[in-house]
């Protein structure tokens, strides 16, 4: 069933499910939502499958649309129920403000517009049944760099018509459901993002590791789903062993090409740490000072250019607890009827 017609694609709007882990060794990142919680709740609200665990799950769940900042305009082609979660992009339906974090019945002909970012950076639009686009390697997640997933492996543009699968539950039953108020995230202009230090923090001067953890970094506008760049002081490296100078390259931040975990923070040349996100490369030749914990990748995804981030070091145990908490929170039990 045709459900949405794209009137304008906006800054960058892509179809995403939880992603396609399992292909990193071929150079194919997992993709999926920049904010796992927001897409998961959007799907649950409209009766869809929120999918299995971020980055390691085998079931990507249903697909929705990730909307970056502003500009997406879509016409509804069939009566359905939608939910918008994540960033508050001042959405309207036929010029009336649309509440977020709740399921809403919309009629054929209605026009949805995402006007401007008021809080956060990425909104998620889910439609009852889930977006029906072909899968690639088991997932519908768009990866613009590998040209796969979503609509022809690219961001949405005017003229695209999206189909939805049949709703899994009655539309009347879905309308009005919302996320429990206590769980609705508050997106400000200051973020604390938890990291586990390493794998190459030992190549940096200890003072620079302290600076990294103490400074109020500002997100650069040259950030995307591959990498998010932070502006701040230069970080310094220890004198390097001879084998690194010989084999890795002339810059003190160079290492012999190494694997990059999702969330890894490279610091090329010691300037502008880059958090590699869900579309990021699997390998690279720059020292990584720390790795953003999986549970906090969504905070990075919701940070707007110019906003401030403080990186906070935690243990692996705390990182796992946070991930468990995140995954447990994407639960039907956290929804209520308005």
């Amino acid at each position: 069933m045709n459900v949405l017609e794209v009137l304008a694609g906006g800054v960058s709007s892509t179809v995403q499910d939880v992603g396609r882990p399992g292909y990193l060794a071929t150079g194919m990142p997992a993709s999926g939502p920049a904010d796992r919680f927001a897409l998961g709740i959007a799907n649950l609200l409209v009766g869809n499958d929120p999918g299995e665990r971020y980055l390691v799950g085998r079931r990507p769940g249903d697909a929705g649309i990730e909307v970056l900042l502003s500009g997406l305009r879509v016409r509804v082609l069939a009566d359905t129920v939608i939910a918008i979660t994540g960033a508050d992009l001042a959405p309207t339906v036929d010029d009336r403000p649309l509440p977020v974090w709740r399921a809403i019945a919309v009629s054929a002909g209605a026009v949805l517009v995402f006007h401007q970012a008021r809080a956060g950076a990425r909104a998620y639009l889910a439609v009852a049944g889930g977006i029906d686009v072909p899968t690639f390697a088991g997932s519908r997640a768009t990866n613009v760099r590998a040209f796969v997933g979503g609509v022809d492996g690219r961001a949405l543009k005017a003229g695209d018509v999206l189909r939805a699968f049949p709703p899994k539950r009655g539309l009347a039953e879905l309308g009005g459901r919302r996320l429990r108020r206590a769980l609705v995230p508050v997106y400000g202009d200051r973020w604390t993002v938890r990291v586990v230090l390493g794998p190459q923090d030992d190549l940096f001067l200890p003072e620079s590791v302290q600076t990294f953890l103490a400074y109020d970094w500002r997100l650069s506008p040259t950030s995307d789903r591959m990498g998010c760049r932070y502006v701040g002081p230069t970080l310094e490296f220890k004198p390097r062993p001879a084998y690194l100078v010989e084999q890795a390259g002339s810059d003190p931040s160079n290492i012999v090409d190494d694997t990059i975990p999702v969330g890894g923070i490279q610091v090329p040349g010691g300037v502008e740490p880059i958090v590699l996100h869900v579309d990021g490369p699997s390998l690279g030749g720059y020292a990584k000072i720390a790795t953003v914990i999986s549970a906090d990748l969504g905070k990075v995804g919701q940070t707007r250019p110019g906003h401030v981030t403080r990186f906070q070091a935690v243990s692996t145990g705390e990182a796992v607890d946070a991930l468990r908490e995140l995954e447990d929170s994407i639960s039907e039990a956290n929804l209520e009827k308005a």
Partner: protein
Amino acid sequence: MRALEHLIQQKGVPGVVEMVPSYSALLVYYDPLVVGYDALCASVTAVTRELDTAVLPPARVVELPCCYDDPELAFDLEAAAVKLGLEPPELVRLHAEATYHVYFIGFTPGLPYLMLPERLRIPRLDTPRTALPPGSVGLGGGQCCVYSVESPGGFWIIGRTPLRLYDPEVSDPVLLQPGDTVRFRPIDRRTFGEIAAAVAEHTYRPVIT
């Protein structure tokens, strides 16, 4: 790293979801809700004790046809030869005679990491190019790179293969695997065009032995 990856795969270490090998590290993704970090480290450490006796599956040899003798495709050949103090045909001979071990695949989908023969090691370009066509064969540092999708890069481009190292239109989109051996076979521009046309129609069969 390949041997460790192979052993972990064979043993089916619980909780391991996927692995990414590199020269000096093996990245292991695990489901922390299935296995704890400490337990996983203990399992992997136990596996490393068997590394010395591990037997890897035999390597495939994959032939990449490569056009070196066209300035449009091999636009850095002359300059790279000057930099290396070689005549261009000598550079081509050294490059095509060597065999290359695929250490791992990554950076972009299907891109192999290959080590260059000593004589062809060359500093990377001072100013990386913003867009290199897929199939471009480049030299940089100690590495030989075959670009799998259009991407920026700081390598000296000495040829181009008409094969697609990454082709999302086919069921097995990535041509090479870690552990493969790669050989480059020099072809002229006409052959390049013929193979490229066959590849576009999905009728070309890569030579794999």
